[in-house]
């Protein structure tokens, strides 16, 4: 409420306790290689979309793992599913499948709780 000419700033910390990590768990169960990601950024570096928009697969992977779902939901639609990321990954993570599973998880959580 702007009674005094200013609003109280909200914290930007990731509050691990209160975040909902069910999207991440859905993906972990169905794509075990997700666990191998070390966030090195090789995928983002080669990403076609990432070259021209603010889509960063590395960042989205982390946000999903921390449960910051709202920041991920819309951005996922930007992925072209071209698969270049999967070619680069040094750990052998099936990155393209992670995007597909994430989209599926969001769709399900919208329709009914997963």
């Amino acid at each position, binding site marked *: *409420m702007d*009674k*005094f*000419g*200013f*609003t*109280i*700033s*909200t*914290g930007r910390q990731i509050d691990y306790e209160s975040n909902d990590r069910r999207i991440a768990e859905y993906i972990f169960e169905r794509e075990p290689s997700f666990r191998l990601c070390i966030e090195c950024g090789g995928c983002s570096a080669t990403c076609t979309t990432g070259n021209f928009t603010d889509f960063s697969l590395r960042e989205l992977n982390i946000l999903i793992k921390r449960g910051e779902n709202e920041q991920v939901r819309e951005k996922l639609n930007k992925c072209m599913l071209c698969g270049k990321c999967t070619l680069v990954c040094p750990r052998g993570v099936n990155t393209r499948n992670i995007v597909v599973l994430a989209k599926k998880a969001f769709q399900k959580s919208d329709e009914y709780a997963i």
Partner: protein
Amino acid sequence: MILEGKKAVWKDYQKEIAEDKYYYVRSCVRQNFFPGSETAFLKIMREELNKDVYEHPCHTSCTGIGYHSDIVPVETTMTVVARQFALMTEAGYENLMPSCITSFGLYTEILDTWHHFPEVEEKVRRQLKKATGREFKKPKNLAHSSDVIFKFRKEIGAKAKYKLINKETGEPLKVVDHIGCHYAKMFPSKGVGGAEYPYVLTGMIEEWGGQIIDYPERRHCCGFGFRQYLVQANRGFSVACSKEKFESMKPFKPDMIITNCPGCPMFLDRWQYVINEMEGKRYGQNGEGIPVFTYEEVAGLVLGYDPWELGLQMHQTDCEPVLNKIGTDYSPEDKYNLDISPSYSKKHNLINV
């Protein structure tokens, strides 16, 4: 919590605090927000502890508030501070005792700068001579007034009329201590207890019967950074800092907050009102706020001074809950009574300075 571990840390950070003959420099704003604090301090020092505390009538603001707001350039500030030192030298004193924590931080910073860069000190001497014709000697000892009260906490405790104990339950009061950022965060070795677990207010509370609470945001700034609140649009950040502290201390159910800075009690006290207006939240028990005190006010309460002479009616968050808990003898109807008769003055042991 393993208290022995904390005490080991406190042992590592001790500092030299002078015994007597203090040169007192007042705060710019404390007499407005907390009128009784400095008067109570002088009464305690002069009458209870029989110390020599001298105030020079010509001393000015140290301009720390201007320096930290980018309004006064650092060389001007240094020259003004040099004039303070000159007045002190002329009066024949060597132990500097500022009332304000920002002043303390500024004096420490300037003395440290001159120690590492003697050419700057030389330049300031020339500038002072040119501007005012005065010369100065650097203070031999620099201690904040809370350091001095800390040093004599046992003597004050011995004369105490009341202890910081809830007289109904017999439990010590739960006290949150909040140290001004300019005290230990800038130069940890110049603060009693260091930066991580400052001991200066903890020592006082423990001596006077209370119990200190350690909560996660204990070291967080209250938000009184000059640039934060001087510009209206930035005040949201200031309030958010205080709010973060309140949210963190609330589960521990503190009875009161003690501070040693001019700005911190002002913020912690007034922002509780603002947060209540903007978000409807209160942080004390029974829908009350948490009373905020300066250490002089706590010393005065413990010694049995009249709360209205200490200026507690000027706090926005009501202090009565604490007064009731420790059993202070006071008259609620005299709270806003500005018409003081001699008999009232005598009855309530009012401060005559």
